[in-house]
């Protein structure tokens, strides 16, 4: 039998045209939601209950991987194919607001019986505010605390986790000197959060003059940076092994005794550490530069936002409300292990009775957001680059921070211009 190329071509073109029409868009009853990674996988299990309560609303979930999320969202925005609702890392909110891609939710929150600012951790709620307008509803929270080997610190003479920077460094020295661990602390150099957390703890503003210039050579940040670099200088943290494929084995082996990391590792550590390690590790809120324990940490996590192109704001809001109820939040914790954004959900027994989770609860009362500028991701990337460079001794600390400032100033040039323009208009 002969294949008729003409027919084949016609069918192909028809398919292309059909695909271009995107019939999904025209369905007024389907709310489309994008979620990342594990959240995306598990949110599907919450949907049947929502549909039982709202039989007239269909929900279509699309899972996108974290590593590609940012690019995909921007591309979707440029191609006008954004969903109705999306999970958004809360440091991304300023960027999408600057793009004019997401809508303010104030009026919706005002009339809502389920969502109000007081039910959330205030530091977390703050991250969703831009000029006191709310753009996202916190979905789950994330912050960094200290994970440590209880047994090793006890042997070093610290039955309680360190509470101040001084004590932290001292304990680290003992751990390393007495060879209780090969390294006291693991500080991955591919993560910008370490220098930023230390800076924020020490009261550094990070940016100055209305977030128009970098302030990393400022005294406060410099001090914090110097403290952090001390871990590398004194050989308390490994330099090279940025490629640790298995941080769990390293922790179990006593390759390192402390790490500052997030809630997802509660589950991972329990699962992956050998069973005899189970009662040998604990978590604690971060030490502070002075006597005001606990020190600050980052207000992380994800929020739910509604895109401007959505024509189903009301239905989308119903879904957000459902995902924000105390019961759904607790259920979500059980499914994914993500810490609930609503304070009330923490009364849930499985959360309240877990001492390791409790460190997060305490820490969440002491969190602060990163500067809310759309350029933050780029700035953070530069911070990571120069931290790495200083840790390797490629640049002197002071020089690294100076260069960092000058790079950040360049990144913020456009912002300064826009601010000037809008000042002219007024």
């Amino acid at each position, binding site marked *: 039998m002969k294949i008729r190329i003409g027919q084949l071509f016609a069918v192909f073109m028809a398919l292309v045209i059909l695909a271009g029409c995107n019939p999904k868009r025209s369905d007024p009853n389907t709310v489309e939601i994008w979620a990342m990674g594990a959240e995306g996988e598990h949110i599907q299990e919450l949907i049947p209950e929502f549909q039982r309560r709202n039989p007239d609303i269909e929900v279509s979930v699309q899972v996108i991987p974290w590593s590609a999320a940012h690019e995909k969202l*921007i591309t979707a925005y440029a191609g006008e194919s954004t969903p109705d609702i999306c999970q958004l890392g809360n440091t991304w909110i300023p960027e999408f607001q600057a793009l*004019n891609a997401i809508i303010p939710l104030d009026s919706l929150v005002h009339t809502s019986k389920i969502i109000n600012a007081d039910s959330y951790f205030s530091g977390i709620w703050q991250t969703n505010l831009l000029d006191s307008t709310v753009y996202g509803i916190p979905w789950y929270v994330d912050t960094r605390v200290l994970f440590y080997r209880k047994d090793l610190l006890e042997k070093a003479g610290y039955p309680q986790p360190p509470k101040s920077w001084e004590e932290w460094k001292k304990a680290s020295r003992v751990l390393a000197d007495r060879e209780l661990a090969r390294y006291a602390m693991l500080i991955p*150099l591919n993560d910008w959060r370490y220098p930023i957390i230390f800076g924020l703890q020490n009261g550094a503003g990070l940016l100055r003059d209305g977030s128009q210039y970098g302030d990393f050579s400022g005294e406060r940040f410099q001090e914090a940076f110097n403290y952090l670099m001390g871990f590398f200088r004194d050989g308390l943290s490994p330099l*090279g*092994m940025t*490629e640790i494929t298995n941080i769990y084995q390293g922790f179990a082996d006593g390759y390192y005794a402390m790490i500052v990391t997030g809630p997802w590792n509660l589950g991972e550590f329990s699962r992956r550490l050998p069973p005899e390690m189970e009662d040998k590790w604990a978590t604690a809120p971060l030490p502070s530069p002075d006597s005001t324990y606990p020190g600050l940490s980052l207000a992380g996590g994800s929020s739910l936002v509604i895109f401007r192109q959505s024509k189903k704001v009301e239905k989308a809001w119903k879904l957000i409300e459902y995902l924000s109820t105390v019961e759904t939040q607790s259920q979500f914790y059980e499914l994914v292990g993500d810490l609930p954004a609503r304070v009330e959900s923490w009364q849930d027994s499985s959360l309240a009775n877990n001492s390791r989770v409790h460190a997060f609860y305490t820490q969440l009362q002491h969190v602060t957001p990163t500067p809310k500028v759309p350029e933050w*991701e780029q700035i953070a990337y530069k911070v990571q680059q120069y931290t*790495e460079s200083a840790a*390797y001794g*490629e640049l002197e600390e002071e020089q690294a921070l100076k260069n960092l400032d000058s790079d950040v100033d360049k990144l913020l040039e456009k912002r300064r211009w826009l601010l000037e323009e809008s000042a002219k208009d007024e």
Partner: protein
Amino acid sequence: MRSAYLFLAPAMTAILIFFALPILAAFLMSFTDFDIYSLGDWSRARFIGLDNYWNLLKDPLFWKALKNTFYFVLVGGPLSITVSLGAAVLLNSKLVQFKGLFRLAFFAPVVTTLVAVAVVWRYVYHPRFGLMNYLLGFFGINPVDWLGDPTWAMPALIILAVWKNFGYNMIIFIAGLQNIPEELYEAAKMDGAGPFQQFWNITLPMLAPTTLFVAIITMIGYFQFFAEPYVMTQGGPLNSTLSIVLLMYQEGFRAWRMGYSAAVAFVLFFIILIGSLIQFRLQKDVNL
């Protein structure tokens, strides 16, 4: 004549819309500061003339990326060609059994996706549990943190790239080898030439056209060095594996500074153009 254009029209239209226009748009974009702000509101893009190119020349990251890319091309390229040639000569030898099997084995990495390969190689390079350091241990060499040490990260990627790609050039070389008339070797043997002399005086000169073709293709491919560092190191540590294309990608799709990123793309275009022109000139000299 007119009907010829009619037949050409569909292809030309496609090329115009999907090839020429985007390139032109990117070229124009490289003279603006098109970025994330401009995406929402076009009036927020400014025409800034040659500033992007100027800033690029002042950007230490660009020079580092350029240096790394040349490192990769100048070390990795010749190495890859040498290994391919060596493998081709070995496989072409009459003494080798199971030629098909070896050919398949050497060609398999070429058709395997890099992401899958990268996962395996990350383990090979693992400083504590990796195969590479295990093998070095037999020679009493201390473990190397292959991907975490700025001096070793690039050699590590070169080894990976050569391993992954030499099979392709090898197949081309084998085709070239099979085109060399057997009489030449027989005549050389009569004159008492050893295997090394045969290789030097017959195989190499007869392979010159093949080698040039392979060299150009390899150079162009290696200048676009991207996937290996993207998957394995993200350009780190200390930007020691940051390539030009990776820089372009990071500026364009991570920082969304499209104007700047377009400028990087055009600089790379000119470098490859110059490289190709030099090789074409060489090709003329060899007189093919």
